């Protein structure tokens, strides 16, 4: 039971669908995930696999006309210290309850810090906005907390930074400010949506280090979304591999890298260069991700899978099966490979 208590966010059969004139677009199609306290869950997949939409579903900030279905159960501490469970999927996306959770319980770091900050408001203004909403009504105190958090993420001259505009900062500094903004209200879950993709490699390492440090010092859970398996290896405790809106493999990071089961995961791993595998050609996955609309029945990876068997893989939708404890795979041929 102790493990159960440590799960602070649980997603059950979460679906995000966009009702368009052309039909129903299933961006996220039945995702089950658990986020444990103080741990990092990595979500990896190609662009368009629904990993970003999954994170948006948590905050209920899915763009129109998306609809979130299923259960998203967040365990949060009430003011008196007792625990309560809220189903985020049932809340009104524009309502007060979800707004109290956004930024305070669950905060988010975005991919491109330049675009994620409003160019016409100062950094201070934008950091203090969240603090004023969730922590205090006092301007001076909010300012003090803002400076404090900027210092914590390693910004020089935090007071000066508070009155600067985003375009006056460098890319790495901006991402630090972004992280500061997300952490300003001490959230219990931090969602990092490709936080390093837009940064230089050297800065990337610093930012990743920063997120890891803050995670351990604040006991924050992190959902780390990326297409970069290298980053996943460095950051995550658990990993979910997503393909076409579904989780195809879900396990801890060691198992994933050493004993991958799903053909897609294997293909992904084979497509990254490694110093260990000498003189081996890199493999690419043939074809492209199908458009997630009006898909045929069967395994989503069928069209690109080398092992796919006609009459087996393309008949019924494939369930996610736990093959060993803590290792789930969505593949019918899992025993054969």
């Amino acid at each position, binding site marked *: 039971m102790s493990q159960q208590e440590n799960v602070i966010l649980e997603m059950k059969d979460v679906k995000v669908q966009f009702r368009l004139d052309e039909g129903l677009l299933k961006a996220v199609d039945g995702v089950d995930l658990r986020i444990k306290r103080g741990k990092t869950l990595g979500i990896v997949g190609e662009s368009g696999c629904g990993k970003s939409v999954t994170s948006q579903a948590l*905050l209920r*900030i899915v*763009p129109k006309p998306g609809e979130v279905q299923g259960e998203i159960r967040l365990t949060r501490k009430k003011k008196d210290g007792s625990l309560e469970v809220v189903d985020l999927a049932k809340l009104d996306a*524009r309502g*007060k309850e979800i*707004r*109290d*959770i*956004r*930024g*305070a319980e669950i*905060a*988010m770091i*975005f991919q*491109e810090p*330049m*675009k*994620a*900050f*409003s*160019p*016409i*408001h100062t950094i201070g203004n*934008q950091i203090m*906005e*969240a603090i004023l*909403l*969730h922590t205090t009504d006092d301007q001076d105190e909010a300012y003090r907390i803002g400076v404090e958090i900027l210092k914590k993420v390693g910004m020089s001259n935090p007071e000066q930074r508070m009155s600067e*505009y*985003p*375009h*006056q900062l460098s890319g790495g500094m901006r991402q630090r400010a972004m992280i500061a*903004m997300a952490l300003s209200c001490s959230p219990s879950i931090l969602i990092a949506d490709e936080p390093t993709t837009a940064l230089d490699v050297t800065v990337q390492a610093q930012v990743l280090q920063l997120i890891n440090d803050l995670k351990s010092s604040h006991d924050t859970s992190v959902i780390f979304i990326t297409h970069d398996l290298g980053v996943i290896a460095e950051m995550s405790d658990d990993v979910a591999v997503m393909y076409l809106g579904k989780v195809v493999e879900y396990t801890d990071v060691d198992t994933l890298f050493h004993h991958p089961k799903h053909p897609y995961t294997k293909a992904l791993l084979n497509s990254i260069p490694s110093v260990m595998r000498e003189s081996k050609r890199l493999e690419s996955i043939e074809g492209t991700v199908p458009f997630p609309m009006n898909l045929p029945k069967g395994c989503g990876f069928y069209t690109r899978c080398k092992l796919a068997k006609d009459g087996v893989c393309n008949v019924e939708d494939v369930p996610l099966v736990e093959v060993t404890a803590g290792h789930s795979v969505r593949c019918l041929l899992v025993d054969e490979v």
Partner: protein
Amino acid sequence: MLNYISYRLLQLIPLLVAISIIVFVIIQLPPGDFLTNYIQQLKLSGNDVSESAILNLKQEYGLDKSMIVQYVYWIKDMVLHGNMGRSFQFNMPVADVIWPRLGLTVAISLISLVFVWLVAIPIGIYSATHQYSILDYVFTFIGFIGVAVPGFLIALVLVYFIFIETGVSITGLFSPEYVDAPWTLAKVLDMLPRMILPVIVIGMASAASLIRITRGMLLDELSKQYVITARAKGVSEGRLLFKYPVRMAINPLISTIGWTLPALISGEVIVSIVLNLQTTGPMLLKALMTQDMYLCGSFILVTSVITVLGTLLSDILLAAIDPRIRFGGVGE
């Protein structure tokens, strides 16, 4: 900020010189110069004009000199003495003809500008936040008509229908008893209701295009990342809308004043002719009919200068509210 303003002011000088040259050319365009017209007029009214008087006049206006010298005379006279030449149609200095009416033209144009903003911005915001709703389509359609159909046609049709329905002729800015009366509170009160129709008609086209621009720009901004960031912070939708996208969209909208203002003044001129308002429009038309070029030229000069100043003000306003322009660094 001061640097920016002085830089912009310096930029104005060549622009103003260019405008004045064009106006001077326009004045000189029609065959026969101003003096021949003037002398002809004097003769017609029975005055005897001697050769020496003609010579005197020629010297006074520098007509015996080259074009460039004439231009310098004209500019010097205007800048130093406020003398814009003589309207032979009204037989008065141009300045005396223009200024009283120009005030009304500027007033109506500015009120129209305010009207345009008050109407277009809220509608634009509504249309953007309720994209593809019924009202959005309605506004889009009205916008189309506003953009497509010129003010003078709308004025013509409106005047006709109001006359048919109510028997009231809504032309003119004042009731007959106030037309030549000095300015009093009663005159202003008499004028205000009569201003409503011209302001709507003049502002319609600009309002329509401003609605389109506001809507388009807001739709762009609404899907931007920083809006999602703010939403992810827990900011409520209403607050978020006004703090970020609207605030962002306002900047380019302010810069539209640069072309809205000349469009409004243009519209005012032609609509005032149809509605027979006591502004510069009908006067300009009369002046043009008789090729009273000093009057026309001065009118174009003054309205252009007003537009230029309006644009300058909007630029300064823009710099005041947009840090990227103020600090010279322009982001993405």
